[in-house]
């Protein structure tokens, strides 16, 4: 043991000094080994720092208080809750009846002797210098010691009287405001002065303003309601401070009043599961937040790290081989002085160790630097402040060890090769015939066959993607191992080539020991890229085929989602101003209830909803209101038969406007591309236009049902009856030929609607464009819409736009760079060997450019062999994966046909070879490698004596 240690010490000393002597080569390998450590180390530090302890999370939520009591609006009915306050349910059996509703009395839940602080939140649109900004309004006395830690003041102070607010820094930035400015809320005349700026440490990207309780939400609510607009929806919680903390028993007591408690004491010291009635009596199981890395993710992570290590080994290995070859005489001297094979191995391996350790140290230090440097950016990106740098020494050590292990692994093959040289051959610089291992290709063949078999099994018999992936990975490793043998096949092409490429090819084939790792590195990178590129291209073709346009090509639609009609004219104008509009068709919606009512909010504050009263005979029997479970009530044969019924045809088109009832002029028909002159006539005649013949009653009219009582409607539907509501019948024209209407069911002019007794409100517009909007136009439009503070659903139909082009480009560039790097390293290695041949060539009168061209072709040969083998090895697994997908898609299709649920479309799983990527890799990259290597090689070699080391 001791002997071993002393001789290794000498080896490490030689390796260390050599690494320093050949700084360029060392730096190259160091960089390759350092980068992953830097990345993974920084990711670990950032991830750990962003994780908060329970205590820190609680402080950010409830400041210095002991608990937060909130009202789940179960009407004050007693409830059971989980220890962390996230899960709850009312006490009792609610299997067949809805949960109770209504507010509870917060005061009742506060234990005796506790002090409380009110915390209310609502939303409003605040007018900033930019436009209208939807903002959270939070009423909390932030200067109270109990609230300390919830908001971090960055400037000024918190509000102390009414008319004052503080705002988050994000709000101030978004609204181009600063402390000292004043803002108003839309619908409220009062102006508020900003007296301070703060941030929410766990939610940096929130637009929020803080006011004293009662100074903002209540006045705003009152003002909005006075204008017949929906009021502010707000929720209130209580922060509670009580000596001795808010115990689990107190929580259970509070639960009796229908309130939920998040308690610091309970969170830090959770009760036994047996003491949680929610789990014991209500039968719920504790919610597992997961948190840890799942097994599958771990496997993927291990695979990625493993493949990255393999790639680095394949790239760095030749660099160590160059080192060993250049210091052949030095190793010979060690041998002459009594070093046996293990000592020679130790010297070369120590090279890997030295650079591995250096990379580990440098990578870890840089990771710290990077983490500290990008911390503000990461905090912004993740939207939360870190609580200091959280260092996990064991994790970092493990990550750093990857560099050491990779360094050692990369040096293993060069070490073994070097130790096999006889001392005499090393000393005299004689180039013996280097035999490549015969075991490795056989192992490779076995691995390839086994991997292919597994992948084949996955493809044909099991449809398991993981099996296909695992089999492909194994086969890939096998091909890498077979590389030396495969390289041999290329040698046969040499006979037909001119001198320089012939020399380069023969040299590469004869010296497989050094060619193979470089070719394998290229192979692995290219195979991975080609596999992903093939998959991406195929997937892209599939998505393109599946794509369904939401409007005619080039058309634009805008719908103000919340139905706040006041914003609509400005939205319509903004679009017209920013895009190249041909036809503009303004669209209104049916308004049910008072002026402020929004779409889809039936049942609240005197607002209702609207639907088309479809005649019962026209409803698909599978979806009829009285059918509870189609699978039980119809046999498969019946279902299959019904699926061919036109009534049961599924339509995924969606207009964004409630019930698809559009109030607008004949321009809507133009934009939607509906060419039916009779439809325009019908509109002019005061009739509606129907786009779906099943909506029509027997008398040719369309019925529009206005529902005011949504609860009664729900009940009626669940009883299999029609929803109660007033039905307005309007004479309608059915469009000929059943053209696509993109979700529109009925169109009528405002006059027709009015005549039928329907109230309307502006909701949006349809446009046809003369030119597709450019990216600049769209950005400008989005900016203008943001200023309006309105939530607008904007659809611009540009046909299918895939995002795989960027992926393919990135992959091509990545594989190209790896190829160039590996080929360059292999060329360096070949050059170190070829000096004697070049001297001979010069001596027999070869022109000096031969040196250049030879070096160029040496580089080109490696690149070509790598990309050819890699492309083959990459296309196959991708094709296998696609075949698996095709198979499982067919199975699913067959299954849904058999079960007759829904109307499946027949699957389309194309296999597309990415010729552009392949072309780039197969032709351009080897060409670039050849030219680059030729350019950087000196054309005249030094005629000096033999190399020093």
């Amino acid at each position, binding site marked *: 043991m001791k002997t071993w240690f*002393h001789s290794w010490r*000498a080896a490490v000393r030689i390796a260390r000094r050599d690494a320093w002597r050949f700084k360029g080569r060392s730096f190259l390998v160091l960089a390759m080994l350092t980068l992953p450590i830097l990345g993974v180390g920084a990711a670990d530090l950032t991830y750990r720092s962003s994780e908060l302890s329970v205590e820190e999370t609680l402080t950010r939520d409830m400041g210095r208080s002991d608990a937060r009591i909130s009202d789940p609006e179960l009407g004050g009915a007693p409830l059971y809750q989980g220890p962390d306050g996230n899960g709850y349910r009312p006490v009792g059996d609610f299997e067949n009846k809805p949960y109770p509703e209504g507010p509870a009395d917060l005061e009742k839940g506060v234990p005796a002797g506790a002090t409380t602080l009110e915390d209310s939140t609502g939303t409003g649109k605040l007018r900033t210098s930019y436009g209208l900004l939807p903002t959270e309004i939070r009423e909390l006395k932030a200067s109270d010691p109990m609230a300390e830690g919830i908001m971090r003041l960055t400037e000024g102070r918190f509000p102390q009287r009414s008319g004052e607010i503080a705002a988050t820094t994000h709000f101030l930035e978004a609204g181009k405001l600063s402390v000292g400015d004043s803002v108003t809320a839309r619908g409220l005349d009062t102006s508020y002065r900003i007296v301070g700026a703060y941030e929410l440490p766990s939610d940096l990207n929130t637009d929020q303003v803080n006011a004293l309780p009662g100074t903002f939400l209540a006045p705003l609510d009152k003002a909005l309601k006075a204008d017949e607009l929906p009021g502010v929806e707000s929720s209130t919680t209580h922060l509670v401070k009580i000596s001795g903390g808010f115990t689990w028993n107190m929580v259970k007591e509070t639960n009796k009043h229908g309130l939920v408690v998040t308690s610091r004491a309970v969170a830090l010291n959770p009760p036994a599961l047996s003491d949680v009635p929610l789990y014991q009596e209500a039968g719920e199981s504790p919610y597992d937040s997961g948190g840890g890395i799942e097994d599958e993710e771990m496997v993927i992570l291990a695979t990625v790290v493993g493949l990255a290590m393999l790639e680095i080994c394949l790239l760095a290995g030749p660099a160590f081989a160059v080192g060993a070859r250049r210091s052949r*005489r030095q190793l010979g001297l060690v041998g002459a002085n*009594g070093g046996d*094979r293990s000592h020679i191995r130790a010297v070369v391996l120590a090279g890997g160790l030295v650079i591995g350790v250096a990379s580990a140290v440098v990578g870890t230090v840089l990771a710290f630097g990077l983490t500290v440097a990008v911390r503000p950016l990461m905090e912004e990106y993740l939207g939360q402040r870190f609580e200091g740098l959280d260092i996990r020494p064991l994790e970092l050590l493990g990550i750093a060890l990857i560099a050491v292990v990779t360094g050692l692994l990369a040096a293993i093959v060069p070490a073994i090769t070097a130790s096999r040289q006889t*001392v005499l051959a090393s000393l005299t610089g004689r180039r013996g015939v280097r035999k490549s291992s015969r075991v490795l290709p056989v192992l490779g063949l076995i691995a390839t066959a086994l991997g292919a078999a597994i992948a084949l099994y996955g493809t044909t018999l099991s449809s398991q993607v993981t099996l296909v992936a695992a089999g492909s990975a194994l086969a890939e490793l096998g091909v890498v191992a077979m590389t030396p043998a495969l390289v041999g096949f290329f040698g046969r092409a040499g006979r037909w080539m001119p001198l320089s490429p012939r020399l380069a090819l023969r040299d590469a084939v004869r010296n497989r020991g050094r060619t193979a790792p470089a070719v394998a590195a290229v192979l692995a990178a290219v195979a991975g890229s080609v596999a992903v590129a093939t998959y991406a291209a195929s997937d892209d073709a599939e998505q393109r085929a599946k794509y369904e346009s939401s409007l005619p090509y080039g058309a634009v639609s805008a719908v103000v989602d919340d139905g706040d009609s006041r914003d609509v004219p400005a939205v319509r104008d903004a679009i017209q101003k920013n895009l190249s509009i041909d036809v503009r068709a303004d669209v209104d919606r049916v308004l049910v209830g008072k002026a402020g009512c929004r779409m889809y909010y039936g049942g609240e504050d005197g607002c209702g909803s609207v639907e088309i009263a479809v005649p019962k005979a026209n409803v698909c029997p599978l979806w009829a209101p009285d059918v509870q479970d189609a699978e039980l009530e119809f046999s498969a044969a019946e279902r299959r038969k019904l699926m061919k019924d036109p009534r049961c045809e599924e339509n995924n088109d969606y207009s964004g406007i409630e019930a698809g009832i559009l109030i607008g002029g004949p321009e809507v028909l133009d934009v939607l591309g509906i060419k039916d002159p009779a439809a325009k006539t019908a509109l002019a005649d005061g009739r509606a236009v129907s786009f779906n013949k099943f909506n029509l009653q027997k008398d040719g009219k369309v019925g529009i049902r206005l529902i005011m009582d949504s609860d009664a409607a729900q009940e009626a539907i669940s009883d299999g009856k029609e929803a109660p509501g007033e039905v307005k019948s309007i004479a309608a024209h059915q469009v000929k030929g059943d053209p696509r209407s993109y979700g529109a069911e009925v169109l009528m002019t405002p006059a027709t609607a009015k005549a039928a007794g329907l109230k309307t409100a502006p909701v949006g517009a349809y446009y046809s464009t003369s030119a597709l909007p450019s990216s600049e136009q769209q950005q400008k439009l989005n900016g203008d819409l943001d200023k309006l503070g309105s939530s607008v659903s904007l659809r611009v139909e540009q046909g299918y736009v895939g995002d795989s082009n960027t992926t393919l480009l990135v992959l091509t560039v990545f594989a190209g760079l790896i190829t160039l790097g590996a080929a360059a390293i292999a060329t360096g290695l070949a050059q170190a060997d070829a000096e004697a041949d070049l001297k001979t060539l010069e001596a027999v009168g070869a022109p000096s450019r031969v040196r250049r061209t030879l070096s160029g072709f040496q580089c080109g040969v490696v690149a070509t062999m790598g990309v050819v083998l890699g492309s083959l090895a990459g296309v196959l697994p991708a094709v296998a994966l696609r075949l698996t997908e095709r198979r499982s898609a067919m199975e699913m299709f067959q299954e849904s046909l058999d079960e007759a649920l829904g109307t499946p479309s027949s699957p389309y799983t194309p296999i597309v070879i990415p010729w552009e990527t392949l072309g780039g890799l197969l032709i351009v990259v080897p060409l670039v490698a050849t030219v680059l290597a030729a350019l950087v090689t000196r054309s005249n070699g030094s005629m000096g004596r033999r190399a020093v080391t």
Partner: protein
Amino acid sequence: MPRHPHNSPQHGPRPDADAPHASQRPSPLTAAPSPNSARSADPVLRLVELTRVHGSGATEVQALRGINLDLFPGELVAIMGPSGSGKSTLLTIAGGLDKPTSGSVIVEGTDITTTDRKSLAALRRRSIGYVFQDYNLIPALTAAENIALPRELDGISARKARAEALAALEEIGLTQLADRFPDEMSGGQQQRVALARALVGDRRLVLADEPTGALDSETGEAVLALLRSRCDAGAAGVLVTHEPRFAAWADRVVFLRDGSVVDQTLRSSADSLLTGQAADL
């Protein structure tokens, strides 16, 4: 340790040595072989019927044909001969870097033609020292570390190996070079450090292959003087050289031609041997 009777370390350069045959100098070729008293001890190196054939069939080359040689402690033998006569082959086989086709090589009682690779490496660490024409030193190691290398490879602690290396440097009067790297030393200094390394520890056999080939004559003389003095101190040395001038430092000169020993006395002139007119023993 048996010592050459007329060559104690303080005698200085061999040509001026007050040897029994001093009167016959400056022609060292006429020097008598070592006195028999030295041969009473066991030879450090013994070559028995050594043959080496390179290649086979049409490419067959007889590099060595039945060489016999005994080398005793305190003795320096020079090997001369024209190019391709087998000088270097003889040296590499003697040091165990190459295997003979037949015959045996016995180093300090061990037949190295039959030992395994590991023991052979150990033998090179403990018994055999090499000095080549140039680039003898490992560039990444200082002079002291170069000398300590065989000892460290042998598993001696770095501290002890360094102490031995410093002692060796002191013996050759180059203590000031201890912490210099090879590229900071002159060629002569490098060769002397290589000599010190060849004899560090218990090693008694130095195999020097043209150690002065890359040096000017003055520096070459200094290196040879050192080799001579180490042999006088009890080591045994084999010196392959082209130059009769350097061969004059040896106790015996062995002449090789076409793989055979054509003379191993000092009675005939080197020149006549080289031209093929060697006198008989």
